[in-house]
């Protein structure tokens, strides 16, 4: 039933995105990541796990476009599978962070008073931890496993979203349409979910997009340090780690995964910034 007008709002945002070259480039980079990750088995020229001792550390050539690693595995294929990790880490960890952040921010902003005070002081405490070292410590205690990495990135990254959502709720709950819903006798639950949240999602979407870039970087760093994705599963960070031992004579092992991280993070950041401009209601 909401098709017609939602389309108009959606089409306004889309029209603005299409006009923005940053959105196009960012969107293309993110789209490429999705395509590579989803269709990895069909795209990959070789099996990323097959060890070929006859072709160790080959430089990029016609058969192996991005060369081979110290076990003779195809770097391109390993990187395409690595895209799956990056995509998954970005979406799952930011998904967790966004859900926690929205719930905390919504309750805090809507109810106010001591609930708000308590939750925001907890946010302050969470923010005093240096996130990366917290993640290191937690992973050191738990198993170094990709699932754990995603969960830990998620539960250490929700505070920004919570503050953002709280601020949106504080301003939206004063608006007349929310007062109207209260005067009609609407329940708090539906006021939050039907009236306030849909109007508070634009900045959350932007922050999630930007957050994904950060999460991918964190995962790469953890994998680089050997406590993220475990071999033989390929991840851009772990390929980088393996490459660092051979960096003097096998540059392709370090440069290509580094470039992949750069392009992906840049893509998400550009897309996030373009979304922020496109969703800005003041320009309506």
């Amino acid at each position, binding site marked *: *039933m909401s*098709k017609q*007008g939602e389309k108009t709002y959606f089409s306004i945002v889309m029209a603005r995105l299409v006009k923005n070259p940053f959105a196009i480039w960012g969107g293309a980079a993110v789209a490429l990541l999705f395509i590579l990750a989803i269709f990895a088995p069909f795209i990959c020229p070789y099996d990323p796990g097959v060890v070929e001792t006859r072709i160790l550390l080959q430089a990029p050539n016609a058969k192996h476009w991005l060369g081979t690693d110290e076990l003779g595995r195809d770097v391109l294929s390993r990187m395409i599978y690595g895209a799956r990790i990056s995509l998954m880490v970005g979406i799952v960890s930011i998904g967790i962070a966004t859900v926690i952040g929205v719930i905390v921010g919504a309750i805090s902003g809507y109810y106010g008073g001591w609930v708000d005070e308590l939750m925001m002081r907890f946010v302050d405490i969470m923010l005093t931890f240096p996130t990366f070292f917290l993640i290191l410590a937690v992973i050191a205690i738990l198993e170094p496993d990709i699932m754990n990495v995603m969960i830990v990135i998620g539960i250490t990254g929700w505070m920004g979203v919570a503050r953002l959502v709280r601020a949106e709720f504080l301003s939206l709950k004063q608006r*007349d349409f929310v*007062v109207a819903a209260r*005067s009609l*006798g609407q329940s708090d639950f539906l006021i939050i979910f039907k009236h306030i949240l849909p109007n508070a999602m634009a900045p959350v979407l932007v922050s999630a997009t930007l957050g994904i870039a950060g999460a991918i970087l964190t995962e790469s760093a953890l994998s680089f340090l050997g406590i993220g994705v475990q071999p033989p599963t390929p991840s851009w960070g772990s390929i980088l780690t393996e490459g660092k031992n051979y960096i003097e004579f096998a540059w392709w092992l370090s440069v290509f995964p580094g470039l992949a991280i750069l392009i992906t993070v840049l893509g998400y950041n550009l897309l996030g910034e373009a979304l922020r401009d496109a969703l800005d209601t003041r320009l*309506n």
Partner: protein
Amino acid sequence: MENQQKLLDAKSLKVHFPIRAGFFSNQLGAVRAVDDVSFHIAPGETLGLVGESGCGKTTLGRCVLRLIEPTAGTLEFEGRDLLALDKKDMRSLRRRMQIIFQDPYSSLNPRMTVGNTIAEPLKIHSLFKGKDLWDRVAELMGQVGLRPEQIKRYPHEFSGGQRQRIGIARAIALNPSFIVGDEPVSALDVSVQAQVLNLLMDLKAKYGMAYLFISHDLSVIRHISDRVAVMYLGKIVEEAARDELFKNPQHPYTQALLASLPVPDPRMRRKAIILSGDLPSPANPPSGCYFHTRCPVKEKRCEEQAPQLKEVAPGHRVSCLLLDR
């Protein structure tokens, strides 16, 4: 007056907003938005509430609906003590009392279709289901002068006047006996104002609900009200039947307000009363009579003694010391 039936009866209502500051949120004072206000509204009556910006009109309007909790006072609606109701009972009583807002651009959820906005009250109170629900929504849209085929449109596709009609449809959906109109036409163009005012009057003629009609515009108040209350700095300073108030204003503030009203007769000469100064802060109201800082006829005692509302004629109450002579 006393034995007349009362739909809404407010006694000594106060709404004070605390001013807090410092690390331990010490209360430094209070903004007295509504300060000891008593009034009543009879069934089917329109009480116009007039006053300048910041005098507490909107707060009073929301307070009688318990959208803002009063700090003190009593509030009776249809014979029930509103302030004693728990959350659940209050919620179900909300179908009897509704509000129409000033700003038609902020009173509608931009992410909800017109149909869903008007259907919301009906869904909350489970009054209609399925096809009946949408038939009722279409009927309501027709009653406020909207075309039922616009049911799936979003608010941004409508003009200010049309949006106000959507807000009115939402407010009358539950057949309330009482509606607070919080400056419902102030944000509209003059030509649209008249249409919306007439719509409100037509609806009242049809359904017989009572209005608390808040406005700063005396012409609008004069057009729609049965009785008028004049508010100054959180207090009602004068209250009377419409014609009595406009013909025979007693309070110097009311007289000044009426003197600013244009008269459609170029030959008629009137004495202009210019109020000097600004509205004092409701956080720090003047001593004695709140109006003494701007009153053109004030005397020494006005600075010390606070006047009470007194009946000077049947149904005509004024709060001014000078009438005590």
